[in-house]
């Protein structure tokens, strides 16, 4: 086994997620637990807001969103040490978050089954709490499935790249056209984006709007 070499904070910030996890694994195996701390901090801080905000889309309050995000990031990092390959860390992390959100709703439902609902207990809602906001629960969970399905339906890899760079990424239409190249224009980017959003909308409405 290669000797563990502690890296500076600055060097750690330049590592990929997978390299950070590997660094933590080597630090742990070498018994250098203090060396793990900055690497864990870079990884947790780097994704914390994204996880909390994704959870906010699906849960009813900020405290629950933070709670589920904390559980997800801890589970994702610790399970990456199990020796199993988790693939791309970011994707793994967001998958764990989705599972934890689903678990949260399932636990909520089970708890509600054990108790009477507020509507069966008129006038005492402070004791029993409110019934679950089913519409709110479904909002982002179903929408996420529709986005995923619409993405899977894109056959042309250049179109998929447009969606990744422009709709789900941080680039302008002009930047996206330049990055994709091969004759892609800004107008094409807008057309592809509009078509994709129409498809997601059609799936959300329960109809088939493929054009």
């Amino acid at each position, binding site marked *: 086994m290669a000797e563990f070499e502690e890296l500076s904070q600055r060097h750690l910030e330049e590592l990929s997620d997978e390299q950070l996890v590997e660094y933590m694994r080597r630090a742990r195996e070498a018994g250098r637990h203090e060396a793990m701390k900055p690497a*864990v901090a*870079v990884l947790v*801080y780097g994704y*914390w*807001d*994204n996880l909390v905000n994704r959870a906010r889309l699906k849960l009813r309050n900020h405290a629950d969103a933070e709670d589920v995000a904390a*559980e997800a990031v801890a589970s994702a990092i*610790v399970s990456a040490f199990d020796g199993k390959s988790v693939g791309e860390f970011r994707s793994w992390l967001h998958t764990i978050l989705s599972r934890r959100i689903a678990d949260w709703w399932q636990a909520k439902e089970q708890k509600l089954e054990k108790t009477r609902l507020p509507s069966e207990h008129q006038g005492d809602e402070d004791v029993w709490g409110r019934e679950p906001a089913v519409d709110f629960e479904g909002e982002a969970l179903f929408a996420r499935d529709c986005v995923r399905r619409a993405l899977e339906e894109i056959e042309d890899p250049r179109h998929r790249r447009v969606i990744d760079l422009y709709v789900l*990424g941080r680039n302008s239409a002009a930047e996206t056209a330049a990055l994709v190249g091969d004759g892609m224009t800004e107008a094409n980017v807008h057309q592809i984006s509009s078509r994709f959003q129409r498809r997601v909308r059609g799936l959300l409405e329960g109809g088939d709007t493929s054009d």
Partner: protein
Amino acid sequence: MTDVERLLTEYKEAHQGGGDADPRPYLARASGVDRELLAGLIDAYLAEAPRRPFSAAAFAESRAAPVAEQVERSLAGAGGMWPALLPRLRDRARLRRSELVAQLAARLGAQGAQQDKVGLYYHQMEQGLLPESGVSDTVLEALGKIVDSTASALRKAGQMPGPGPPRTDEGAVFARATYGEPAADVPAEAEALAERGPEEWDEVDRLFRGGA
């Protein structure tokens, strides 16, 4: 540009500008299918967003800091995910550690000095200093009832990940204050009691260190 595209663009700008970037105010400006579409697109955007560059100052003030500390303790300790899980379950149950310890001691039938020892052992569980294999089902069942979990879920959490080499700074970790509650609620005598060998163990020692 549609309303959804405009709101998505605004959200992405806020997100890239740093700060909280709470998506809910943006959702509140849309309705019906537009709102669902926007939620799905923001969700997919956040799932693809790259890791935020590290800022030591922002990290120190962030809720991410205690979470990172729990993860580090989980990786460095002997109790798997307990350092990350137990404080959260306790928070969810709205219990201070002293209140949880009192309930746990009562459920285990601990009296007098044994109550302090229950406090010590529970503290070690939260800190990742107590190996899961030593903690009995009796303790985990009692704890599960207090924090609305199950013995099997707690057992499984304590087993992850595979054990690493023993840490050399257990004393420092033990003395460290956690979650705003100092370790001072664990008397020094209880610590000394816990250092006794198996031949001197009482029932509480066996429950927390003797295995199932």
